[in-house]
């Protein structure tokens, strides 16, 4: 296998940050090469197999081959580093063509204008490295709309207090079918003077080209989609790019080094192929979108005379201000035997969605200072139908003791057949801070012998305070609905799939890695288009914003390559 051509664009990664660049530049007639570290799983390779989806390392690397190191506070209050090979806790997501967009639930929300100006709107917070974005909501709005059309977002726009400005009146795809519980949430929330909103999803509710409508499989998040309704980068964008004849994808190509030419310009990407052989390719422009942690790692690994601290890192900012989505989860149980038979059947109906979100609390009043502070979002959803995962969560009783024997079997039968759990997820800003960053571990290596990412995961206590306010609101709704066993768990533990920052963009080259165009301040033919660019993350999931920004950067690249 020989690749000796010089491409216009080399894209490293193939998920949400990569797909729009691949799509737009291929369609514009530029030669695009995609280097993806994972394999190409086709739609027909996916099934609703819990073994492959969650029980074994199929869509993520084996941690023996590719560990990471996580640095967390121990009981003594000291930072303690542990290999993920020891703990089993890691930050890998969807290592395959299309990346984690293959396995997302597709809960989509735009950032709001205030999210671009967090610092100037609410002021400094001690211990947080807040920064305004160098662009405004208006700069991104046309690209949010583009994602709705091209990737496909279904939903219904309803007026509400924090509705972000839109250039179109409604979504191009109508809302997906809903479970009866959605109307119960609406009623309970209305009784508390809280407005619920239909939750947009990156899932087609009607056919689009080669992609079929959602068939309500009941196994969406964590699973590849078998109808291509889910707006993965693979089916929505890379398939289309391949049709142009301008796009080449090399799966199982792990990029480990970006080489400059001695004049602050990138000239080659070096990668290991599926056989572990070292290969390189040349391109005019390089776009890195390997998901935030691995993007920072790649830059830090790419050291040379010009960049002794890593590529584009002479200011020491690469890897800094990593962020996640703050918040937590909660839920409550509804017992079938307390309901009319028809209502119980409707509640138990699998497949159809809950799709309710609340943004009434996107801004709050601080309980002590009484100043306005940024709040967040509440999403409602059913407990995932994965049966093994459900059973594992029921392994311990209320006192924390292991269940086994007859009590276990009786409890499992009761849990699976007599109730349905409605959950909520809280999304708040993860304040960037000095104790949340990526560096290279000096001891642990991956299977290729390269240093792995060391991730310090410190959170700001403000995140917990905001999360708990929102969790109380969500719990009140569940109480009003008559749920049992209501709980909430807000913590500073980061979710592994919602990561951003590390190469923040900004106008000041001393405090940011990228400029407003997501172009490296120090390397003019290096662009970063995954979530790494985000200085703050808003109080929603990131994927729509990453998709939109990548479309924005694609337009910039088209101008540059002319």
């Amino acid at each position, binding site marked *: *296998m020989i*690749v000796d051509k010089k491409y216009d664009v080399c894209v490293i990664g193939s998920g949400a940050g990569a797909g729009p660049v691949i799509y737009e530049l291929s369609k514009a007639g530029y030669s695009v090469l995609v280097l993806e570290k*994972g*394999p*190409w*799983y*086709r739609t*027909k*390779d*996916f*099934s*609703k*197999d*819990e*073994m*492959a989806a969650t*029980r*074994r*390392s*199929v869509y993520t690397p*084996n*941690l*023996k081959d590719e560990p990471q190191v996580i640095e967390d506070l121990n009981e003594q209050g000291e930072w303690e580093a542990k290999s993920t*090979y020891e703990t089993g806790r890691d930050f890998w997501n969807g290592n395959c063509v299309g990346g984690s967009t293959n396995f997302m639930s597709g809960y989509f929300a735009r950032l709001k204008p205030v999210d671009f100006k967090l610092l100037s709107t609410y002021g400094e917070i001690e211990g947080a490295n807040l920064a305004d974005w160098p662009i405004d909501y208006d700069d991104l709005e046309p690209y949010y709309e583009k994602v709705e059309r091209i990737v496909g977002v279904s939903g219904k726009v309803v007026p509400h207090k924090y509705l972000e400005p839109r250039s179109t009146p409604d979504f191009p795809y109508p809302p997906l079918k809903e479970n009866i519980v959605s109307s119960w949430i609406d009623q309970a929330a209305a009784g508390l003077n809280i407005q619920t909103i239909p939750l947009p999803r990156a899932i087609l509710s009607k056919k689009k080209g080669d992609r079929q409508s959602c068939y309500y*499989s*009941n*196994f969406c998040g964590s*699973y590849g989609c*078998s109808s291509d309704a889910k707006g993965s980068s693979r089916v929505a964008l890379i*398939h289309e790019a*391949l*049709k142009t*004849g301008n*796009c*080449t*994808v*090399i*799966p*199982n190509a792990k990029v480990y080094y970006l080489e400059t030419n001695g004049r602050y310009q990138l000239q080659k990407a070096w990668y290991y*192929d*599926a*056989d572990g052989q070292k290969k390189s390719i040349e391109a005019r422009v390089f776009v890195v979108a390997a998901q935030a942690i691995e993007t920072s790692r790649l830059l830090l690994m790419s050291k040379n005379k010009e960049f002794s601290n890593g590529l584009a890192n002479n200011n020491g900012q690469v890897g800094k201000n990593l962020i996640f989505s703050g918040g937590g989860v909660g839920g409550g149980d509804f017992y079938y035997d307390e309901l009319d038979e028809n209502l119980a059947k409707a509640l138990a109906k*699998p497949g159809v969605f809950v799709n309710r979100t609340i943004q009434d609390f996107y801004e709050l009043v601080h309980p002590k200072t009484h100043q306005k502070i940024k709040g967040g979002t509440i999403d409602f959803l059913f407990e995932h*139908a994965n*049966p*093994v995962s459900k*059973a*594992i969560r029921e*392994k311990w009783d209320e006192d924390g*003791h*292991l269940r*086994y*024997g*007859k009590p*276990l*079997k009786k409890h*499992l*039968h009761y849990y*699976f*057949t007599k109730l349905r759990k409605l959950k909520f997820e809280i999304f708040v800003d993860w304040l960037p801070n000095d104790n949340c960053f990526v560096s290279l571990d000096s001891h642990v290596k991956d299977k290729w012998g390269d240093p792995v990412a060391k991730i310090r995961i410190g959170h700001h206590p403000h995140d917990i305070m905001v999360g708990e306010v929102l969790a109380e609101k969500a719990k009140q709704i569940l109480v009003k609905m008559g749920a049992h066993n209501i709980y909430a768990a807000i913590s500073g533990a980061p979710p592994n799939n919602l990561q951003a920052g590390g190469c923040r963009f900004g106008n000041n080259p001393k405090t940011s890695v990228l400029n407003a165009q997501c172009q490296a301040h120090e390397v003019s033919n290096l662009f970063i288009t995954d979530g790494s660019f985000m200085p703050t993350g808003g109080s929603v999931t990131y994927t729509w914003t990453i998709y939109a920004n990548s479309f924005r950067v694609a337009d910039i690249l088209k101008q540059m390559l002319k």
Partner: protein
Amino acid sequence: MLQFPFWQACQNTNNLDKTSPSLQQAILSGVLNILFPTFDKTPDIRQINAVYHINRYLTDPLIDPDEQQFIINGTKWLNESAHENFKTDFLQLSAKKQQKLIQIISHESWGESWLSKLLTLTFEALLLDPVYDININECGWKWLQHLPGRPRPDQPNIYPDILDRKKENIIITGLEQL
């Protein structure tokens, strides 16, 4: 039911010399029957092929060898606990005393972890797709009224065969190649 006589392959013989593979298998079966007993026509260990599933886990080259060894070591440690508490082998104990011993070790750190791991593997045998030669005739799904998603997994896209895609050295330039 499939049964694989391959525990020997997993063993570090230095620290397991007093507990033979066949004895370990017997202890494991005994423990699984306590964790997930037969009653009221609920699926039992044999119907879900749990021992086969655990044996396959123990010989899976993609599973952390330390985790595999921990499962095997647990049978040895349980037998040692039987001697400490009742002066005899686990398998020689009455059903009541076996239950008591499981209760005792469930409050010890290693014991809780070991039993928890066995329960996780039992749940997999109960509730993963029967394509893996477990959950025979969907007995686990039927018992818990679980509806599987579709499409169901089939060869060659089941674990571990699906991982062969990770070994492909290919260049994709058109959809027709997929």
